[in-house]
């Protein structure tokens, strides 16, 4: 509710609250005289608010124009009398009346009243990556396969044979090997639209690298989906690093990296180990990955559930691709070497 824009609406809301309060109190007709507020002057309906309402309606516009006044309504004084309530930003607001047209005025210090906006996502960047974006959608935002209630991240725009594709993980686009080519990819993923398939179709699944469970070595959890005309851009939203470089670099220990993802937005981390072999838990079982890059966050976790598919790039203006995020825990993030991803799917990053 934007209170400063609609003082009348706020006033009406307070009237309702005030009336409910009055009605509740007036049912206590067994209260002994002198014990608490005197009620029932208005008969069975409780206190008579007509004069207070009239005074409020007549004076609200003028009052709202005064500095320090946040809202106007009706209430009951401690003695149970209907009154006009004036809500102020602080205690020293001067020039306010003590009565209006014979109706007492109650001053109530509320501080500034503000609409409650969704909390900004950690990592900053203004835009909420779980939102639905207008075409062309940026990279680093929520996507998912239309056939499941889940969400991951749109990692990058890539090219193969002259066509453009979304790059993300197999487990984000291809339902852990179960999907067929042509399946719709939605933005946002269904997990971010209350499991309804109301997001926009931005791409159709084209290809994925099979995840092999059990005692086999995997190098990448990757998939691509062919972009529908004009649906996907190649840079992050305004709070991120922009368009990545097309040339990948090799991760080194201690390298500073960054990413923009659906859950923790844009943030930085440090490469903790390379050439790592890691057992990764999927809903379908454990898969072993080799050649992995391990990253720890600089401020809290580098990634959380839903950041899967994010492109991990160098933490500088160039933003060279380093890895494709796909797994992690509360303390570490695992990425496939981006070179392994590009080679496995015969793709190139569509960047600077």
């Amino acid at each position, binding site marked *: 509710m934007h209170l400063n824009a609609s003082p009348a609406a706020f006033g009406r809301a307070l009237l309702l609250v005030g009336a409910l309060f009055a009605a509740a109190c007036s049912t206590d007709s067994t209260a002994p005289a002198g014990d608490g507020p005197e009620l029932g002057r208005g008969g069975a309906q409780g206190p008579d608010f007509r004069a207070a309402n009239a005074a409020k309606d007549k004076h609200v516009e003028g009052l709202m124009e005064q500095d320090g006044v946040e809202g106007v309504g009706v209430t009951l004084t401690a003695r149970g009398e209907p009154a006009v309530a004036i809500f102020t930003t602080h205690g020293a607001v001067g020039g306010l009346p003590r009565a209006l047209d014979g109706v007492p005025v109650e001053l109530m210090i509320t501080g500034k009243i503000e609409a409650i906006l969704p909390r900004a996502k950690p990592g900053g960047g203004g835009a909420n990556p779980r939102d639905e974006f207008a075409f062309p959608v940026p990279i680093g935002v929520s996507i998912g396969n239309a056939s499941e209630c889940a969400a991951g991240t749109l990692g990058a725009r890539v090219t193969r044979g002259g066509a453009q594709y979304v790059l993300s993980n197999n487990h984000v686009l291809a339902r852990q090997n179960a999907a067929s080519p042509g399946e719709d990819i939605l933005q946002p993923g269904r997990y971010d639209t209350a499991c309804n398939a109301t997001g926009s179709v931005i791409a159709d699944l084209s290809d994925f690298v099979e995840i092999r469970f059990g005692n086999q070595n995997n190098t990448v959890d990757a998939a691509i989906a062919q972009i529908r005309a004009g649906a996907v851009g190649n840079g992050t939203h305004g709070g991120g690093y922009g368009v990545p470089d097309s040339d990948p670099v090799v991760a080194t220990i201690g390298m500073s990296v960054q990413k923009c993802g659906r859950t923790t937005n844009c943030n930085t981390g440090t490469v903790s180990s390379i050439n790592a*072999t890691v057992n*990764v*838990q999927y809903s379908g079982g454990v898969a072993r990955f080799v050649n992995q890059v391990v990253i720890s966050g600089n401020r809290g976790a580098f990634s959380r559930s839903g*950041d899967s598919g994010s492109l991990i790039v160098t933490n500088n203006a160039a933003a060279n691709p380093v890895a494709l995020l*796909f797994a992690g*825990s509360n303390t570490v993030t695992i990425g496939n070497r981006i070179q392994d991803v590009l080679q496995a799917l015969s793709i190139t990053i569509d960047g600077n």
Partner: protein
Amino acid sequence: MTISEAVARYTDSLMAIPGVVGVGEGQLEGKPAVQVMVVELTSELRRRLPTTLNGHPVQIVETGVIRAQPDSSSR
């Protein structure tokens, strides 16, 4: 033996230890180290894991279980 060789040589036997979820090339106090990722650093693991491997320090990192990370209603 270089750090890469040490990691290649010892990964399988380290990964066979219950509670170990990953092995990689890390760094401890500026020196190349064999990084061993564990779900939880129990006293049992402390006893079992070596402190060096072929002259390279072993860096133990407690990570918890490592999972693929979609946000999904079916965990």
